[in-house]
Each structure stands twice: as C-alpha cells, then as structure tokens.
C-alpha cells in the first residue's frame, strides 16, 4: 500500500507530462500550431500599429513620387512656378500655435489653480465640466461660429483698435491689411479656446494629485494659499504642467478645419500681425482639391503631412511620457 503510493507520488520524480503542457511526446506539428496560437492575440493588437505604419508609408510613397528638389525647404510657395516651399506654412503654423498655447496655458493655469485651491469644492464641481465641454464641440462648429460672430468684431473693432494704440510696436504698425477679419489674430483666439480644455484639465489633474498632506503642512507653517500653490503645489506637479503644454501644443498645431475657415488662406509670409496666413494642416485640407491632377502638388502636400505628423507625434509622445496616467484626459476624448 505504502510502496504503491510512494511510486505514484514520488516527489523526486518529475511530474508526468500533462496533456496541455508541451513536451517531447508532442508532435512537431502540434508544437508549431501551439506557437502560432500564442501569436493570434497579436493580430488584433497590432491593428493601430499597422494603421500608423500605413499612414507613414502612404505619405512617404506619395511624397517621394515627384522630386521637389530644394524648393521644398524654402519660403516661396508658387505652384505655377514649381516652387513648393513649406516654410511659409511652417511659419504660419508656429505663429498661430505658439501664441495660442501661451494664452491657453496662462488661462488654464489660472482656472486649474482657482478650482483646486480657491473655489469651494461644490462650486468647482459645477464649473469644471463647462470647460471640459469645450473639448467636445466639433471644430467645424467653432469655425462657423467664429466666422459669423468674431470675424466682423475683429475686422471692425479689435484690429483697428490694436493698430491705432499699439502701432509703435514693429509688426503691428504700418498699413493695416484689409482681411475682412480673417487672419492670424482670429485663428489664435479660436486655437486658444480649442486648446484650453486640454491645458486646464491636465493642470487641474496634476494639481489634484498633490498629496493633501503637502497642502496642509504648507498652510500649517503659515503660508497663504497662494504661497502653497506657488512654492509647493506647482513645483510638485511641474511634469503635469509641462505635459499640458506639450499636448496643448499638439492640439493647436494639428487643428485643421476651424483654422482653414478663419486664417484667410494666404500663401505668402505674413507682413504684419493682422495678415492672413495659412498653417500646414489647413493648407493640406483646403488645397487637396487643386492638387488632384498635379503629382508635384500632391507630393508637396504629402511631404507637409509627414512634417506635421512628425512634429505632432514627437510632442504627443513626450507629453505622455511625462505623466503616468491620463485617464481623465482620455475620457474627455483627447
């Protein structure tokens, strides 16, 4: 009895091969099948990667179809003369995205500090969703609203007023271009609004993640609320603030339709701060129609797409690396 038990369950002996574990008894065909089976989950999981690679590949193949030569890296855009300078639109993109980001970072910091440090919780609980709601409105709706309401205000009131009172600043003075209100200022304002929910939400989230102990010990040491924010909470959440800046820039830089409606669609370098201009995405969007039968034109636009994709991807990856969780950001559809 004991001997038979011992021979059955001898701990020194390795376990007999079970039917599910792969062992020498398994045929080569089954082993290959098992290996392939382990790869099956990768097929659906790789779909986003395949799409990204497909996008880059498609843009590359279209972009390399025609040889644009050195004109691509110039500041002259004239399809009739075979001048395909991306410089004009790169300048336009940065001239709109950077001021818009600066404004929305300043307002976003203010809003986030207000709702985390100064407003009672039941007030901020009602106000914050309004700002988050800005993220959900389609950009074409922003575009038509700004085109009909803000554009006349800029052309009749804002631009002439700034021109009159700040004309001594280089770039503001000189002849006031008659743009009908379209142009850089209008695009900057609308991009500020569109980047605002991102910057506010991310800064608010990172300020909320500052441990309660730190707030309370700051206050207990006699610091005012503002001093706690300035010297404890903001330094603690500096990565979150930086990621807000990067992801907000990504949104402002890649925004297409609203900018195409509001910036005026010029293909020359702006001569004053009121000039019409064009950004890379807005150019790609509004000029594809005229590029359909011109391989050079299509190549130039595809190359612009590559530059745009490279810049937004780098900014997005850096912005995401800085913070561990972007749950709220992703649930706002960003």
């Amino acid at each position: 009895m004991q001997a038979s038990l011992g021979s059955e369950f001898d701990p020194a002996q390795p376990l007999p091969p079970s039917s599910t574990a792969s062992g020498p008894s398994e045929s080569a065909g089954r082993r290959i099948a098992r290996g392939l089976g382990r790869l099956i989950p990768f097929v659906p999981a790789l779909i986003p990667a395949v799409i990204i690679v497909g996008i880059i590949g498609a843009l590359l193949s279209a972009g390399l179809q025609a040889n644009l030569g050195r004109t691509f890296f110039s500041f002259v855009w004239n399809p009739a003369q075979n001048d395909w300078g991306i410089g004009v639109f790169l300048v336009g993109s940065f001239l709109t995205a950077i001021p818009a980001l600066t404004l929305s970072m300043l307002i976003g910091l203010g809003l986030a500090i207000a709702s985390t440090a100064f407003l009672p919780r039941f007030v901020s609980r009602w106000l914050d969703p309004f700002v988050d709601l800005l993220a959900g409105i389609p950009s074409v709706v922003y575009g038509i609203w700004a085109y009909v309401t803000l554009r006349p205000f800029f052309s009749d009131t804002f631009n002439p007023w700034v021109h009159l009172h700040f004309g001594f600043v280089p770039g503001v003075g000189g002849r006031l271009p008659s743009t009908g209100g379209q142009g850089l200022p209008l695009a900057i304002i609308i991009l500020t609004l569109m980047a605002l929910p991102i910057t506010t939400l991310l800064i608010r989230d990172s300020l909320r993640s500052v441990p309660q102990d730190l707030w309370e010990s700051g206050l207990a040491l006699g610091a005012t609320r503002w001093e706690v924010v300035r010297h404890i909470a903001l330094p603690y959440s500096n990565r979150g603030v930086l990621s807000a800046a990067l992801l907000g820039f990504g949104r402002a830089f890649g925004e297409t339709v609203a900018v195409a409606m509001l910036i005026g669609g010029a293909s020359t370098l702006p001569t004053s701060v009121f000039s019409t201009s064009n950004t890379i995405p807005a150019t790609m969007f509004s000029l594809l129609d005229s590029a359909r039968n011109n391989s050079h034109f299509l190549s130039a636009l595809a190359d612009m797409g590559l530059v745009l994709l490279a810049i937004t991807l780098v900014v997005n990856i850096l912005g995401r690396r800085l913070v561990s969780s972007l749950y709220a950001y992703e649930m706002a559809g960003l």
Partner: protein
Amino acid sequence: MATATLPSAALDPDDVLTQSSGRLLWRTGFDRWIGWLLPLLFVVAIYPILDLVYYISSRAIPTLSWAILTSTNPTATDALGVPIITTFEIMAAATLLAVALGIFGGVATAEFLSTRAAEWVRASANMLAGAPSVVVGYFGYIVFVTSFGWGLSYIAGVVTLAFFMTPYVFRTADLAFSSIPRPIREAALGSGSRPVQYILRVGAPIAFPQILTGVFLAMAIGVGETAPLVLTTTYGVLVPQTLYSPVSFLTGLIWANFSQPQNSGLQILAFQAAFLLMVLVVGLNIVVRIISAQYRKRLEGLYQ
C-alpha cells in the same frame, strides 16, 4: 538651552509684528485678491461656450421645422433629410468597423500580451489618437481613393473615418479589461476557467459599461470630424445608393456653406446643421459622463 534660543528668536512675536507687518499685510492681501481674480477667469472660458450655444441655437431653432429635418428633396436649399440620414448611416457603418477593429485588439492587449509588448501596442494606439485628422484623411485619399481605385466615395469615407475612430475604442477596451480588479481575474482563472471563458463570462460584464463609453466617445469624435470625410468623398445631394456614391453629411454641409452671405438660406441651413451636430455631440458626451459615473460607483462596490 542654546539650541532653543534660535527658533524662539526667529518666532519672537514682537519681531514678526514690527518687522514684517507690512509684508504680512501684502501676503494676505495678495492671497485674498488672487482668490477673487483667478475664479473670474471662468468667465473667460465659459462666456464663449455660452455665446456659441446661444448664437447657434438662436440662428437655428426659429427656422427649424419637422419638414426641414425630414425633407429629402435634392434641389431644395432648406432640406436636411439627406445629410441627417447619411450622417447616421456613415456613423453606424464606421462605428461597427471601428469596434470590430479596436475591441479585440484592446482585449488582447490587456489579457494576453506581455507587459513589454502591451506597452508598445498602447504607444502605437496613442500615436494614432494623436495624429491630426487631416493626416488620416490624406492616408485615406492616397490609399483608398487612388491606390485601391475606389474613387471619392461613400466606402472610402467610411473606412477612413473608422480608422480614425479605432484607437479610441481600442484604448477604452484595453483600459476596461486592465482595470478589472486582480483578485477577480485570479479567482476566475484559479477556479479553472480558460482565458476565453474568463473574458466572456467574467470580464465582459464588468468591462462592458466602460467599453460602451469608449464607443460613444469614438462616435462623438467621429461625427464631429470633417477632414477625413471631406478629403475622401464628393459632396452629393442624394442618400447614397451604392458604395461608390457621393455623400452629404452634416460637417461637410457646414464646411461647404459657412461663408455664404449673412442670413442667406444656405447659411441658415449650415447653422441648423451645426445645431444638430452640437446636440448630437453634447448628447453623446453627457451619455458618456453618466455611464462612467455609474461605472465608477460599480467599481467602488467591487473593491469593497
């Protein structure tokens, strides 16, 4: 004693009052003022959204009627029936495709992939979500419209839009399954269920609400997107009859008519389309918020 004199000298009440009363006044005063000024910034953020909602509603609602919403007359300038029907068709098709493309990948990433592989896969999904819509539209134009020879067509638009929506579905499916409490997973697998049984019988009921939020979110993003559809379709006046028909949709209608003269029929039509779009997107966002609030309650219950 010598060690005790240092802090007591620094905190001498007379010292604080005589030397820094001006400073103290400034500090507390600044704190009070900034506490009033910063919340005023909410006016800057909330005024535009209220104005936008009010202005678009005031232009759209007085002229909106059931006849306009349902009329499919291709020659009328006050008919929204075709764009509404087509938008819903496009959304249904693109959502189905995006769910098919995204949901399995998300579940597989959460359940089967090693941590390292999952990291890379998630990074690629985030990249795709961060890619500007115009770039995705170009991809659709180059691949589906020209290379595949589909031309500017309904199907090219639907597939491009689906690709644009895929990462959002993918991400929430992944997130939903990754955030199922570990003990639940271990209990299911430990009591002998196979991974597929765990996913279908245990994981799916828990993760379903969150996946649903992801799908609604992707729909809200997709329905408001203009570039992927405009770049891959031609604008038509009829409900699409074949896969290669021209299409008309709400965002395209706004893009085509936003610069019409003030108060012209077509501009009013664009505002009506914008109003419908806004209602649709805000409605979807509210649904998302409600579901995710409910979901959070349920999850908290699970953790107890």
